């Protein structure tokens, strides 16, 4: 009975807690390159469940700091790996969640800012690192990171916004770069970035309507949301699509109850965690985005989440609002 579905909070807390204790699994080692991101996902999920203390704060901060890439600047996903915008944002998000951005030394803070700004290209876009891959994901990483650090400035923001607007498509979505097909997750990175730098007014009313339309068409009869037309639903889009709708203030353009059911049906009721869709293997990535979606819709007594930052509102309300 769908109406009896409930969120297994305790199970999810246990599941996230167990993740770091899986060193006898090969997969644990194979995911080293995502460890910092994984910690951010886990910590955010715990924050939403009001169980932040499940992780040992000191240990986590110590680990985050050990991931700093002193050669190139920025955070690597794991000690001795390389700095990248993806992991840099995760590192900063974790520190901000623990209200301990000052754990970063002045020198490292400067290096970090330099690393982020240094990856901006003349057209305003960002590359993830010095090897040149360009993607609106990295625009988001960069702007969110700089905002967390309180270091946004118009020389960075203005060209970055121009580039993001070039990624808008005729269908009402955004792609990974100009000309690329619309994708829910890219819509989030673009709208989230615009929201963080307070530039949503660069979109016309008509565009906002179109974006809202495209986003709400992602909901499928089974309740879940997909990333593109004719694709299967997936719990992680509960976040990408919902947060985007929230940013343009059209959160209720999809059906909450049905989406909630879809997310709850994707729980592993035995060992905890949420998967991409019912009966599949769970992971921390889908767990956090499932919970984040539920939080945005105001279900299950979860801690409120900020749709632009994907962090608890209690954390983001401390951030300086751009323009400063």
């Amino acid at each position, binding site marked *: 009975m769908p109406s009896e579905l409930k969120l297994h909070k305790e199970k999810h807390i246990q599941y996230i807690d167990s993740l770091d204790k899986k060193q006898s699994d090969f997969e644990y080692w*194979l995911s080293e390159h995502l460890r910092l991101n994984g910690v951010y996902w886990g910590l955010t999920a715990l924050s939403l469940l009001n169980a932040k203390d499940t992780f040992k704060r000191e240990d986590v901060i110590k680990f985050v700091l050990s991931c700093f890439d002193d050669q190139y600047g920025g955070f690597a996903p794991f000690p001795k790996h390389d700095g990248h915008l993806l992991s840099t944002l995760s590192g900063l998000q974790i520190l901000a969640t623990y209200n301990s951005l000052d754990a970063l030394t002045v020198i490292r803070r400067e290096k970090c800012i330099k690393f982020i700004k240094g990856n901006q290209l003349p057209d305003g876009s960002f590359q993830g690192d010095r090897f040149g891959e360009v993607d609106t994901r990295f625009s988001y990483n960069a702007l969110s990171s700089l905002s967390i650090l309180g270091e946004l400035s118009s020389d960075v923001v203005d060209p970055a916004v121009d580039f993001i607007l070039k990624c808008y498509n*005729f269908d009402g979505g955004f792609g990974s770069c100009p000309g690329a097909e*619309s994708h829910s997750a890219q819509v989030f990175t673009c709208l989230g970035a615009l929201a963080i730098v307070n530039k949503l007014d660069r979109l016309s009313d008509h565009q906002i309507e179109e974006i809202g339309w495209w986003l709400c*068409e992602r909901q499928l009869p089974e309740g879940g949301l997909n990333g593109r037309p004719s694709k299967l639903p997936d719990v992680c889009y509960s976040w990408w699509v919902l947060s985007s709708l929230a940013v343009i203030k059209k959160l209720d353009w*999809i059906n909450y109850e049905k989406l909630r059911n879809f997310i709850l049906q994707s729980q592993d009721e035995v060992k905890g965690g949420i998967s991409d869709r019912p*009966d599949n293997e769970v992971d921390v990535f889908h767990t956090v985005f499932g919970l984040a979606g539920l939080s945005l819709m105001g279900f299950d007594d979860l801690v409120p989440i900020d749709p632009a930052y994907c962090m608890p509102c209690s954390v983001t309300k401390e951030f300086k609002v751009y323009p400063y």
Partner: protein
Amino acid sequence: MHGVKRRQWNQELLEQKKLNDAKNINNYRRLTSTILGLKEKKEYSLDNLQKSKELLKINPEFNAVWNFRRDSIIALKEQLEAKFWEEELDFVMAELKIYPKVYWIWGHRVWVLNNYPGSPVSIWKRELLIVSKLLELDARNYHGWHYRRIVISSIENRTGESMDKEEFEYSSNKINNNISNFSAWHQRANMIPAMFANNEIEDKKKFIDDELKYITNAMYTDAEDQSVWIYIKWFLNSDIVSNTYTTEEYVKMIDDVKQNILIINQDDLDFSGKENAWCLKMLIVIEEISKRFGSQEECRTQEYVKKLIEIDPLRKNRYLHLRNKT
């Protein structure tokens, strides 16, 4: 995990997995610490290049190792034989075949092609064939389409010739294979304005006429498919039509499309007792366009919205919003 079925682990399987994992972990950690050590000391050699390959075969997501590999290649550039570059491309392709959705592998391939000695247009043209093949296997692969656009622009930059027409043909092909392939419709919607802008179309009016036939055919073939409707919505509103057709022709076209949509909608109603949600959504769009032309026809948007609330309840609040707006 994406698309991985949850499975029940019995004790026996768990034991077996544990044994296997222990072996793998050992090997993997040894290899990882070796490579990261070499990386820290910037020890670039052909031997170490080989070692990084072994690790990447186990874990193609290990970005730092791809970086080490690239730094090694740059450092060793003078020593590398010509065939190295081909072998590198083969290696990347073998990885892509197993992991077609890993960003790092696609990224590395672009890097290799850009750094290939001379980066001649011939290798990029070959690349176009390869990515076409990959898109045959998975016609919606987001990375594949993205990569295709990179390859095309590379070829265009090197030859100075536009490939818009070829890409337009390619989109037709892909759509003919499966009209639900929105990736191809997207590409088409980008190519047509480019072709118009670059004067690559001889008879613009005929082109628009033909395109109209094409989308009419598509809407009759599958009126449930949002890919088709999203494209039609773009086409009806696009500058290329308004700049090519006279106002009279434009108005007539809009009316033709409207009549066809009404026929399809009625047909659905006759068959199933239910109207077609996408038809109604498009009728609202069409009224907006007609209004721009000062159409005198009675506005029925409110009526459409009311029906949509009933037959498409998931998006009820959007329709309520439309109702209040008009």
